């Protein structure tokens, strides 16, 4: 039998060297490609950034020019803003205003003959009024208490009237009293419009 042996025309070392050469070429290609790609991306972003900066500078100049235009109308703007403040202030003041004249009128309307109101105390934001006075007798005082909550008299304003003290002044032969009258909610406020 004749033994057939493969004849190796290219030595293994040369083949391995060629393979390594191909691998190295590919690696060089990838690395240079990667480098140039990153360079390209960086350059592109840098150029875009420069363009945006220039655009922003230009826009800032435009807005400065608009601000200067607005400054020319400072008088008008000041008047307009002032008018806006005042209008809303007037609206607020008048819509929240407590008319103390209503309280005085309600007390007077409830006052029977033979009774004298000697003092009234009303404070904004508080829903009670303190009424001091003197009466010829207790019947008149009782009538005054009724009148204060009578819808045709003081009841337009007062929801409740409580006698907090009563003293008989023997020298005057009169009953001196203090009444705490509770007002209805927003009773002193008149509708504005």
């Amino acid at each position: 039998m004749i033994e057939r042996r493969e004849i190796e025309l290219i030595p293994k070392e040369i083949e391995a060297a060629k393979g390594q050469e191909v691998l190295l070429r590919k690696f060089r290609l990838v690395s240079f490609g990667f480098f140039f790609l990153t360079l390209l991306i960086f350059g592109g972003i840098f150029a875009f950034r420069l363009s945006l900066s220039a655009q922003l500078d230009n826009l800032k100049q435009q807005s400065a020019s608009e601000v200067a235009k607005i400054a020319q109308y400072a008088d008008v703007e000041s008047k307009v803003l002032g008018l806006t403040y005042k209008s809303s202030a007037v609206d607020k003041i008048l819509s929240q205003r407590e008319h103390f004249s209503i309280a005085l009128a309600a007390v007077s309307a409830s006052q029977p003959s033979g009774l004298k109101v000697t003092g009234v105390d009303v404070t904004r934001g508080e829903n009670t009024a303190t009424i001091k006075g003197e009466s010829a007798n207790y019947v008149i005082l009782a009538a005054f208490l009724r009148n204060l909550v009578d819808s045709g008299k003081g009841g337009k304003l007062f929801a409740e009237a409580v006698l907090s003290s009563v003293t008989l002044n023997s020298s005057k032969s009169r009953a001196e009293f203090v009444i705490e009258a509770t007002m209805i909610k927003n009773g002193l406020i008149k509708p504005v419009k």
Partner: protein
Amino acid sequence: MPTSQSFLNRPEVRTWGIPLGSILIGILLIVLGVIPAWGEVKDLRIKVSSEKDRITALQEKSKKLSDLAGQAEGIDKQFAIFDQAVTSESKVPELLTQIQKISNSCHVKVTTMQFGGETQKAGGNLLEVRLQYASESSLSRLKCLVSSLEGASRLIDFESLRYNLSIDTETKAESILTQATLISYYTPTPQLLPDNPIDFSLSDPDILQGAELLKKFKVY
């Protein structure tokens, strides 16, 4: 330098050095160049966008002000009406004069009238001027005074009102002694900021109704 020369001349360095160096420089470019620059680009894009919006708003404001400048006469007229009710400064002497005139018109004798300071009303462009007021009169005159103060062109509110009947021991004449804390108002000088929009119209129903209402108030 023989050492470095020998290192650079080594065949593996000459073979792999340049491609590896390229990759390294590429990575450094990404880390030190691309990523920060991209962050800046994002910031710049936001700034450009907001600056464009700002310019649009400023142009609108400028146009609005230009239109309003053409209505200056009407604005001045309305301003005068509102300024009489709520002044632009505290104007305390004028306020005291007005209250004195109202008291005189109701034949009320003023015994004390004292400036009690200024305070800013919470959460608004409104400042308050406080006055301590005391007077002597009859009840009907006091009622006249209270009604007149409520109907005065410069707005005056009562913070408190207290009256007591006083009897003269000799003449037995009765009089009402009144003590009150009065509040009047004024608005501060507006601060003009270019970026604040103008949302004003002379035909605003609130302004027209307010002006009509204020015309009913009496000037003292």
